[in-house]
């Protein structure tokens, strides 16, 4: 049995995850999202990635970005390094795709702020 702290919401439930007859069982969660998190955390931990990329011709120097879905936790640092090589130009609208299918994960990186 493995124990995880659920990070889906501030309640921070302590999950006990076990595998029985090829089925992953989650205990300690108070919602559906917590069960999904527990299963993922047991099989293949995933996280959202949030960071910034360089932006030019704007009054601020960095454009905040987020992944459209979770990516494998083990690849966070590697993919962040990829993002640090990027420079974008204004205008950028919130939701604009900055990198499509980053590192073949099937997940896009999008802007979270409109900078005109």
């Amino acid at each position, binding site marked *: 049995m493995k124990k995880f702290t659920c990070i889906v919401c501030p309640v921070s439930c302590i999950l006990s995850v076990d595998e029985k007859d090829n089925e992953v069982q989650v205990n300690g969660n108070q919602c559906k999202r917590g069960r999904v998190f527990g299963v993922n955390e047991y099989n293949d931990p995933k996280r959202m990635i949030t*960071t910034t990329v360089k932006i030019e011709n704007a009054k601020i120097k960095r454009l905040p970005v987020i992944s459209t879905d979770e990516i494998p936790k083990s690849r966070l640092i590697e993919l*962040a390094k990829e993002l640090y090589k990027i420079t974008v130009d204004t205008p950028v609208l919130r939701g604009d795709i900055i990198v499509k299918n980053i590192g073949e994960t099937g997940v896009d990186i999008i802007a979270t702020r409109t900078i005109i």
Partner: protein
Amino acid sequence: MNKRQVDVVIIGGGPAGLAAAIEVKKQGIDNVLIIERDSSLGGILQQCIHDGFGLHRFGKRLSGCEYADNFIVEVKERKIEIADKTIVIEITKDKVIYAMNEIDGITEIKCGAIILAMGCRERTRSQAFIWGTRPSGVLTAGTVQRYINIEGYLPGEKAVILGSGDIGLIMARRMTLEGIEVKGVYELMESPGGLTRNIAQCLVDYNIPLHLSTTVIRTHGNKKLEGVTVAKVDKDRQVIKGSEEYIECDLLVLAVGLIPENELSNQLNINIDTRTKGPVVDEYFMTSMEGVFAAGNVVTVFDLVDYVSLTGELAGRGAAKYVKGQLKMDKPITRLEPGENVSFVVPQYVRKHNLEEKLPLYFRVKQKLEKVEVTAVGNDETYYKKKHRVVLPPEMLVEEIISSNIKEGDKKITVNVMEVSKE
């Protein structure tokens, strides 16, 4: 000097101010103005690029910027007037604001109502009492966040974080992702200051050690920080001799707490609650000065922005009613008091006849307890009961009392958090 008259002026364009402005406009008041000292709206949310915001309100985990943008878009759609790069220098008791910017100089604004939404401020080095030299490289967590996420500077290569509040934890992860080596998070208290999920996703995920009952006692280096001395403390928070350890670093990040920002409120001599360090407020978050409301972290430091927005909306509805003359300011009042294991309750008092359908109570516990019951008790009647598996000081409790249950003439309602087995 320019002079003008505005029905409701909101000071601060962060999450509390944005929500308040939208609500005032929704209530049919058109002459609304947001005064913001920064060049853009959104307040501190604009530097909170991480996700986890707005789960209550939007049912999604948004980044801080996205959460802010949802409100900014609505403020613009509703054509609410914004005075940006403008700072309020004075508020008088007759609700006159003196605001200043580089284009108009000073403007005198006569206000029907004012909503204080200035947010909060970080504790600094001088409030954390750290001995030693005064080199560069000692920064608050919010400053480091702004440098990295907006201004594009990396303020160091090897960092030590003092304080395990949420901002400290978030910055531990953020700096690691930026290639800064985070040597550890040091916390004076016996338990962490931040949410449990942030310990998991910001420290455990990146193998960053958390040292409890340990603090930074000295900084080293003349021009630039060269290192810090940390030491363990006993139960009375006294340094344990012989436990000192030198850690080489060029960045000391201070995440040692937030205090409501009330410099302007103090000019008005409004009543401040010594427990929350914010104004004493009523059912619509009106302060002791009639027509002056407060919303968000000015009142008390909330852990979730969702609650900040809710209090903004409440103050917005209150301010709109006030200028329409619909708030009954007469007594009687019912005080809300912290009882067993509760450190404060917001709002501090209410008038039953002004209450909306539900009365939300915001409060914190003094210490961690398991299997507890929250009660709100009037003169001789319990108005509210709810069980919780675990309560912690860093996690604010919010409970809603059905207003019609409250008896007219009750002088006081006490909020208690007690272990069930003790009953």
